[in-house]
């Protein structure tokens, strides 16, 4: 195949963002060809750099697999932003390198205290696109609220919606609001680039991660506004399907999820389970009947699945056209044949740790493929950026390092 350019070839990003949403967004830009300079500081270390799992289980600021998987393809510039020479270096980057996009995810006003607020940057680079993201956004009475997506899930209503009705709201695993915002951020950033291309105008983007997360549960929100219905957590119950749940299969903590959408799915399930008494029980032959006796039906199905191999059951049910899936752990995903087929898990080469894992892209482009290179060590590109972009002399560079302006661990 002939070489095609990457999507963001030539795009320049000055990235002050940390932790998850900002870094994941700029990772996607970088994996698709943008030059992303990630500004880091030892005195304000990215929390994720000290977050497990670490390569070979050994702690180290350059060893977090978590950080590495969220920061592929970037360049790291270690700067102590509290010093004036460091601030001047940033201004030089803005003036001389002319970034298209600045990204940041500090508490509102924090970057302004260093002098890099939108208005000041715009005075120097009038068409800058300036992307900020925090839990609650840049305005409002609670704008200074600080929090990670793990607890943001509680604010976004997702905790309340996950778990069992008779038990506390345990919430989904991980930091769901963090993970669902990057695609929204990407769409908006590219839209802003396109608008700037046509009009010459830059702009400021304010992504409140809670507001982003709420897009995905909009129907449940409208249910409250229109009907006064506060949707409650309900295990695996689904108002429009029955049976619908995770059923125990053979082995330790093994489950198969089954979703029967309609009578055709039900007939297919009964065919797969031919001979089981519940398949011919008159009460279960209509949706209304299955719903009315759902608990009993699911307990009988559970007794049938409990003896079976989960993988085999999934394949048998799918063969009949029943939506069914083995409930896979993240470790099992590594062996998932479909994910292998789609080439989802990747390794990158990291300067200090060698091979480091990263997820593949969430979409594939036929002409301009994605390519991730290893995440940088802290300050890995200090010299390159100063020599090649800022044209700083060797003496000046040595003195900046000596004074602690330029940092690496």
């Amino acid at each position, binding site marked *: 195949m002939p070489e095609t350019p990457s999507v963001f070839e030539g795009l320049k990003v000055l990235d002050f963002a940390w932790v998850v949403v900002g870094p994941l967004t700029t990772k996607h830009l970088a994996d698709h060809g943008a030059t992303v300079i990630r500004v880091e500081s030892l005195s304000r270390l990215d929390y994720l750099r000290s977050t497990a799992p670490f390569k070979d289980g050994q702690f180290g600021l350059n060893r977090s697999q978590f950080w590495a998987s969220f920061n592929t393809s970037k360049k790291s510039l270690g700067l102590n932003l509290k010093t004036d020479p460091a601030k001047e270096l940033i201004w030089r980057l803005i003036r001389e390198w002319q970034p298209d996009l600045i990204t940041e995810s500090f508490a509102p006003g924090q970057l302004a205290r260093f002098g890099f607020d939108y208005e000041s940057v715009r005075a120097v680079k009038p068409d800058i696109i300036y992307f900020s993201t925090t839990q609650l956004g840049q305005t409002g009475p609670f704008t200074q609220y600080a929090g990670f997506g793990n*607890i943001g899930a509680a604010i976004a209503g997702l*905790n309340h919606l996950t778990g069992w009705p008779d038990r506390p709201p*345990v919430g989904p695993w991980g930091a769901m609001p963090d993970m669902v915002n990057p695609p929204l951020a990407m769409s908006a950033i590219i839209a802003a680039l396109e608008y700037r291309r046509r009009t010459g105008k830059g702009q400021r983007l304010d992504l409140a991660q809670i507001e982003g997360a709420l897009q995905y549960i909009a129907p449940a929100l409208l249910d409250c506004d229109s009907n006064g219905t506060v949707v409650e957590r*309900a295990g695996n119950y689904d108002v429009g399907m029955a049976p619908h749940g995770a059923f125990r299969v053979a082995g330790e903590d093994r489950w198969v999820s089954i979703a029967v959408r309609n009578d055709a799915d039900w007939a297919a399930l009964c065919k797969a389970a031919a001979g089981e008494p519940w398949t011919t029980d008159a009460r279960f032959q209509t949706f209304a009947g299955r719903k009315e006796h759902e608990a009993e039906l699911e307990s009988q199905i559970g007794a049938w699945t409990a003896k079976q191999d989960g993988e085999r059951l999934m394949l048998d049910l799918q063969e009949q056209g029943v*939506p069914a899936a083995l409930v896979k752990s993240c470790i099992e995903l590594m062996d998932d044949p479909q994910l292998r087929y789609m080439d989802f898990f990747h390794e990158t080469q990291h300067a200090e740790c060698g091979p480091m894992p990263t997820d593949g892209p969430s979409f594939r482009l036929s002409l*301009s493929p994605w390519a991730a290179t290893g995440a940088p060590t802290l300050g890995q590109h200090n010299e390159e950026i100063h020599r090649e972009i800022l044209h700083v002399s060797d003496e000046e560079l040595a003195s900046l390092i000596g004074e602690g302006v330029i940092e690496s661990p």
Partner: protein
Amino acid sequence: MPDSPDLPLSPYRVLDLTEGGYNLGAKILADLGADVIRIERPFGSETRCQGPFYQGRVHPEASLFWFAFNLNKRGITLNLETEDGKAIFRRLASTADIVIESLGPHRMEHLGLAYESLHREHPSLIHATITPFGHDGPYAHFQSTDLILWAMSGLQYASGDPDRPPVRISVPMAEAVTGSHAASGAMHALWYRVRTGEGQQVDVSGQIATITTNMAVSAYATAGTPIKREGEFRDVGYTRMRVLYQCKDGYVAAFVMQGKWGAAFNGRIAKWMQDDCVNDFADFDWSEWTPGVKHMKGQVEEAKAEIRMVEEPFAKFFLTKTKDEIFHRALKDELMLAPVLTSADLYQWEQLDSREFWVPVEHPELEATLRYPGPFIKMSETPVTFRRRAPLIGEHNHEIYVEELGYAPEELVLWRATGTI
């Protein structure tokens, strides 16, 4: 629409052939200004059967699910199974910039509408295609629902109480997340096209998009960390911590850190306790509190005891505080604590109010105005606006077929009779 503001995607037309939660994809493009035409089968999309329904009216024009994910789009009906329907689609595609569809693996090819042929006629056309697992591969033919995508993403396995089956989030969300990635992918292709003139295919798998909501999956998986469901706790291999506490009037989520970070955040919770004469942590040195490090060194029991030493006083203390008290103290002192809010709480929340997040949209047919969750992002030059409610079945047939494409009104009558529209 000459009176419309110039939005980022105003010059672009999108044909939306997705169903279910995948509908969010083209809605995002519509929010950014694209002219999105939602193409439905002649008697209306199956997505209209999906609840919840306005005032409980089970009716294709009252689905709140449909409303939410088809806002800002226009709507036409078209039967792609008929020859006329295919010809009309080709005509429409020649006026479009992006086609986004979830018809199923290779379905467009089977309909004779393969991307290759559309692309030949219209080289800058972008085709975003959503399938549950991919067009090919061992699971490509699998049937899928929201629950199936959660199961195949690692997320269901890790969510729920340990003594009960693993759970999904109780409302469908996986397809909407996939739609969002499709929008982002289509935008990538659009930016490529702007620079090169070339359209391309964007291939989105629901399984992979859902996996991306499963935090740092490859990092945990290769480390061999068994992320399991732990109810009100989270276990990331070296620390099992409580992340949910009961408070006076509900629940509060907590993120309790260790070492240097913990010293700052937990120290401020301890200070609050002390203000209330709760002195469990009066002489506590938080920077020395590193149960995770002890665990990694093999001192597992010591690590557990250290965690209990913190969790138990926290649990007792939070029981004396309301969600509101906890939130305001968290705001003031930067505590990693968050109230567990419901949809009703969110509609009344000052923060969203002050940002004018809830946007009223009129539904004249229902004689009602619904308050929608507002823009997914605030853009200073090109704010997201809600220009029109979701379309009724075939609402824009005349406008698009006759006024814009120039078909004769008589043709529409014929198409209706033959089941084409």
